[in-house]
Structures are given as C-alpha cells and as structure tokens.
C-alpha cells in the first residue's frame, strides 16, 4: 500500500531535483553520489536485532563479529537475538501488532507485505546498495518494493538445491544429475531399485516442503494465482503436475508425509537417503563433522539445480530473508545504517564465506565472490536468487499470499495426492477452494 506523508513527498521531490541536476551532466558526481549514503546514527542509539537462528555455525559467528565491528566503528550498541525458524514469523508479527520489540527483524518471505504500514521506508538504503553493487535481482526487488517504497532490504536466501550422493547415482546408472522431469523420475526409480531411495518433505515444513512443491507445480505451468491475483490452481497443468508427483512419490523413502524441515537432513546424514532438496547445510555439516564416516560422506555429496520442467525455465522458490525496521524504533537512522553496514562487501563476503554460501546474495556484484568457485560444490547455490520466483507467483505479495503459504495449501494439495486420499483432480479443486477463501474480495 502507498502510505505517503508530506515528508516523504518532500524527500521524493528533493530526490527528483537532485536526479535532474545529476542528469544535467555531472556523470562522475553521479557515480560518487550513488555510492554515498550519509546515515548518522542517533546519539546514544541502541539497537535490538532479531534474526533466524543459525543452521551453520559460520553464519552466526561472522554475524556477531560484524556486529561487534559495527559497534566499534559507530558506538551503537547492538543486541542480536536469534530465533528458531518457525517462531521468527510469529514474533515479528506480534512486534508489528503491539508496536514494541526489536528495532530490526530479519524475517521470512513476504512478512513485510503483511504489515507495510508498520515499517520504515528503506528506499535510501535500497537505492544506495542497488547502485553500488550492480543492482538487485528481480525477485529481491519484488520482495522489497511496496508501491513506491522499499519496505525491506533483502539479506539473501538460504537457497535450496538438489542434494545427492554421487556414488549412489552412479550405481543406479546416472553419471550426472538429470536436468529434466522424465530423467528425474527415471533416476528416482533406479535409486529405489538399488535400495538407496530419494525423499522430499511433505509434512508442514516451511522451507523444504514449500520449496519443492511450488517448483513442481510451477514447472508444469500450474500457478496458485495469475497476474491479477485470480486463483487458477485448479487447472490441467496442475493436474499434470500432480500426476507426475504421484509417480515420483512412489519412489520415495517411507515416511516423507510426516517430514518437517530437519527430517531430510538427519536421514541424509545417516546414509539412508540418496537425493533430496536442501540448503548447503547438509554438505557443511558433513564437511565439518568429527565423525570420520560422515566427513567422508562430504566427498560424495553433490549439488545440482532443480531440473527444468515442461515450461522450459527455472521455477524455483526459496526461503528469503528480508530485513525490516519497525516504525516504533527510536533509532531509525542507526537501524538503517546497521542494515547497510551488514550488506557492504567488507562484511557480507566474509559472512557468506564463513557459512560456505549458505545464504545466496540478492545483489549481482556478489556473483563474483570467490566462495562460489573455491569449491565446485558451492557453485549451484550462486544463482539461487537470480533464478527464483516469489512464493505468490504470478500474483502480488500481501495478506492473501501470506495466508495461503502459511496454510500450506500447495503442500497439502500434493501431500493429499501422494497419500492417496485424493485424486489429482480432487486435490486441485480443493486447493482452489481453499485459496479462494484468502483471495476473496
């Protein structure tokens, strides 16, 4: 929603004047101005930051080190609290509702679009980073922008890729990971025949289940909503996707209908699983394990992009972490400056490196980061945000999309077909009905 006051209008006006002046011929000055942002933290500012708890140790270690550096440079005291992934969204929501809590929240997906009126406009930080770091990826723009404002700045995405055991695929007759859907099905059948099956979460798992379920429907041309937010999930394309997924499910390891986010990690590291969708955390855990057997497994772990479906282009969705500043903060400048500081190359690249690319960047400049090439197993995660779509594709982000996602409408549709409780047509029709409750005018 557009929520402009007189001060915002003046700012835009001033920006327009400055822009016109720059366009008038000061080319060099333009570049200089673009890479300068003066945000003076308020005197005596103290910040409280809430972020997702670590999945890889390097993430937290470097985050805290960078925060300490910020305090040393600016004198702003910062307290960082970590919250379990599933509890982060409720906490942010409660803070928004009661008007008290952390100054900055690094939350999930489209959280910012659920309470845009409660957030500080971050356009200045957004534009500064946009110009300095070769621009935001399209999906990051989508997440950040509401009307003419930027209500969040995307930190990155703990991206998900296909994670598999090279030796198991080879034993099943596959020298490389299939890049299309018939190939994926054949591969999963062969893995099952060898007793080393694949498995993808179908429980109410926020990250893993939403990730692969959206991908498989979108890749067949199915969508929850169209560009005008009309619910269109009950379509022949969705039914085709469901027919395919039923065949795929028959090759899975038992129990995936109950899997939550940590499930596939622990089964994979136990050696029972050959293929799943996950972040780089499985590889990270294996590589850094004290158990020699698990450490050896790291050599056998490979990553690949999600196969391309009938629509002929990537259709992934990944968890995304937007940074939001709440309007109730007494220190908006300090909060914005902290967000800027953590996105600067001097902090961002070491942080990304310490977590071996667990978070993929939203800014193009970080494609060149050495973390993506130092180990070829990191490389598939580099283009996570470049290729991904947003969870309410092809519609807008907002109350309805958040509700549909939180209610696991897409995941439940697929799970009901896999469990045999519904036919593909029945499942698509039910999902249509459920989604329409959210998108009704």
């Amino acid at each position: 929603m557009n929520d402009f006051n007189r001060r915002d209008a003046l700012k835009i006006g001033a920006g327009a004047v400055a822009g016109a002046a720059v366009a008038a011929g000061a080319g060099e000055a333009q570049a200089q101005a673009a890479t300068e942002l003066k945000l003076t933290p308020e005197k005596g500012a103290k910040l409280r930051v809430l972020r997702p708890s670590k999945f890889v140790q390097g993430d937290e270690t470097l985050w805290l080190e960078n925060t300490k550096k910020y305090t040393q440079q600016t004198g702003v005291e910062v307290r960082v609290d970590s919250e379990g992934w599933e509890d982060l969204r409720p906490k942010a929501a409660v803070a928004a509702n009661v008007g008290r809590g952390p100054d900055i929240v690094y939350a999930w997906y489209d959280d910012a679009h659920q309470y845009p009126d409660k957030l500080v406009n971050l356009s200045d930080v957004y534009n500064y980073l946009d110009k300095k770091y070769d621009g935001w990826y399209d999906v990051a723009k989508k997440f950040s922008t509401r009307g003419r404002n930027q209500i969040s700045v995307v930190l990155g995405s703990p991206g998900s890729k296909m994670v598999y055991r090279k030796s198991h695929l080879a034993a099943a007759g596959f020298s490389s990971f299939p890049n299309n859907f018939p190939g994926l099905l054949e591969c999963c059948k062969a893995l099952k025949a060898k007793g080393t099956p694949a498995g993808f979460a179908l429980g109410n798992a926020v990250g893993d289940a939403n990730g692969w379920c959206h991908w498989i429907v979108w890749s067949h041309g199915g969508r929850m909503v169209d560009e005008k937010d009309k619910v269109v999930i009950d379509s022949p394309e969705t039914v085709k996707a469901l027919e395919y997924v039923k065949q795929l499910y028959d090759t899975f390891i038992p129990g995936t209908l109950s899997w939550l986010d940590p499930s596939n990690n622990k089964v994979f590291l136990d050696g029972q699983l050959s293929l799943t969708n996950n972040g780089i955390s499985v590889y990270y855990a294996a590589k850094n394990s004290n158990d020699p057997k698990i450490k050896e497994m790291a050599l056998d772990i490979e990553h690949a992009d999600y196969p391309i479906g009938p629509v002929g282009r990537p259709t992934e969705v990944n968890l995304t972490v937007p940074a939001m500043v709440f309007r109730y903060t007494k220190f908006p400048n300090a909060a914005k400056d902290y967000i800027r500081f953590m996105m600067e190359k001097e902090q961002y690249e070491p942080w990304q490196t310490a977590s071996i690319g667990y978070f993929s960047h939203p800014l193009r400049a970080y494609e060149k980061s050495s973390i993506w090439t130092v180990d070829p197993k990191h490389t598939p995660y580099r283009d996570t945000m470049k290729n991904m779509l947003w969870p309410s594709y092809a519609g807008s982000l907002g109350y309805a999309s958040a509700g549909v996602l939180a209610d696991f409408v897409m995941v439940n549709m697929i799970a009901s077909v896999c469990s045999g409780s519904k036919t593909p047509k029945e499942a698509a029709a039910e999902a249509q009905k459920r989604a329409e409750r959210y998108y009704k005018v």
Partner: protein
Amino acid sequence: MTSVPTAPTGLGVLSPRRSLADMLDDRRVLSFLFMLPAVGILLTFLAYPLGLGVWLAFTDTRIGRAGVFIGLDNYISLMGDSVFLLSVFNTIFYTTVATILKFGLGLWLALLLNNSMPFKAFIRAIILLPYIIPTVLSAIAFWWIFDAQFSIISWALVKFGLLDRYIDFLGEPWNARWSVIAANVWRGIPFVAICLLAGLQTISPSLYEAAALDGATSWQRFRHVTVPMLMPILSIVLTFSVLFTFTDFQLIYAITRGGPVNATHLMATLAFQRAIPGGRLGEGAAIAVAMIPFLVCATVFSYYGLQRRKWQQGSADD
C-alpha cells in the same frame, strides 16, 4: 436528676480517621478490598483477553492492520472450510479417546498405588515425572520415538523379527492421530492418577470393612464403595483433563505441526496457524472462540453430570 454529659459540638460526626477504621472493621468492606487484587488480575489477564478474542472474531483484523466489524462472516466462512471442519473432528476425537484412556489407565494406576508396597513414596514421585517434564521436551522425545526412520519402537520390533519394516507412525493420517493421542495419554496419566489417589485416600477403610463383612466381592466393593466416593473428585479431575486436552497445542505443534495433510490439526493449532503465521487474527480468534461452546458443554457434562449426589448415595436421580 442526673446530667448526661453531652459531646462537644462536632464530635457527634465520626472523624475521617475513625471512619476509615470503622470501615475496615466491616467484614464486607474488608472482603471486597482483599478480593480487589485477585479481581484485578482476573480482569486483566483473563476477562480482557477473552473479551478481546471474542471481539476480534467478529472483525477481519489482520496482523498490523486494525479490522472492521464483519458480524458472523468469519464463522460463516469457516463452516465452508474443510480444514476447519477436519480440525473440529480431530479435536473431539483426540479429546474423547485421550480422556477415556487417561481415566481408565489413571484410575488403574491410582488403585495400584493405593496398595501397600515398598518404596511407596518414591514410586509415587517417579509416576509424576512425565507430568513434570516440560511438554515441549516430551514432545520432542515422542517426535523421535515416532520418527519414520529412527523410531526405537520400529527398530525394536524389526530387531526381534516381529516386523520387516518400520512403522510410518506420523506419515499415515490414522497412525498419526493415534500416535499423538498416545503421547498425550502418557503425559496426562500422572495428573489423573495422583488426583484420584488423593481421592482414594480420603475413603474411610471402615466402609470397605463393612462391605467385606456384608460379603461384597472386590468388584462390588469397587463398584459400590470406591466409585461413588470417588465421584466428586473424579468430576473435577475430568473437567480439568477435558479442558487441557481440548486446548492442547504444544504436543501437536512439536510433533506434527498438524500434518500429515492436516490429519492432526486441532482447533488450537489451526487457530495459531491462521492467526499468527497466516496473519488473519480475526479468523484465528473465531476458531479459538468456536472452542468455547464445546468446552462449556464438556465442563457442564463432566461437572454436573458426575456430581449427582443422590445417585452417589444409591438413590434414583431427580
């Protein structure tokens, strides 16, 4: 003639200080004052949230956006929502089965513990352990016990050759329902058992002696002495147990998150999912408020239905 001393002018009216002391001597005033803190706490932490919840249920409030009054729209919409209707079924099934099992097993345990045995106090303390452990910890333990790949139950059954593959405890809807009920029963038995044990200990041994002298069998003693004498406490414990089970949240949230395919979603977990992660506070509140009639019915039934004193005393009911 004697003269009666008269009070100086003005003293006929009590002084403010005197008046306060007199007021505090009044038992009604004093009772009211003593009740004030409790009333304040109840109004602030019970009545206000309840009232707010009921109000929110009549609005379309979203997180971060005040709502407008929409009457019964939330309820009408929920009537057409298959997930809500499934959650109502799940909640009633979960509460009914878990309560019956908790009472059956709890009473049995209480009767066992009421006997003389060595280390009686120690055993009674041990029995309370499941109730003492934080719910979320026991829920995580059950999450592992019921895990599709790492279940110790499946492992043991396979190891002893009783099964050839692991049980899918949480991946199949009915298995999942029974599994979460088992977790709830395990956790709830100690509460029932200890309360009923307290009740058993209030029954005078002379009643059993008299019944034994009359030639009553052990079943008759149980049926005609134990059960009627236990009924008042049974009704209280049943009321609380039904309330706790009907509003259960933590076990489900930690073990299944309502899955698979919403087969274990209770009204409480669905209310949370819709209100907080989903951002629809009004609808979440409506689901929570929809629990109230069920709770009132269950309470009325268990409290008044089982406290029919005439029936306890062997007479017919009115």
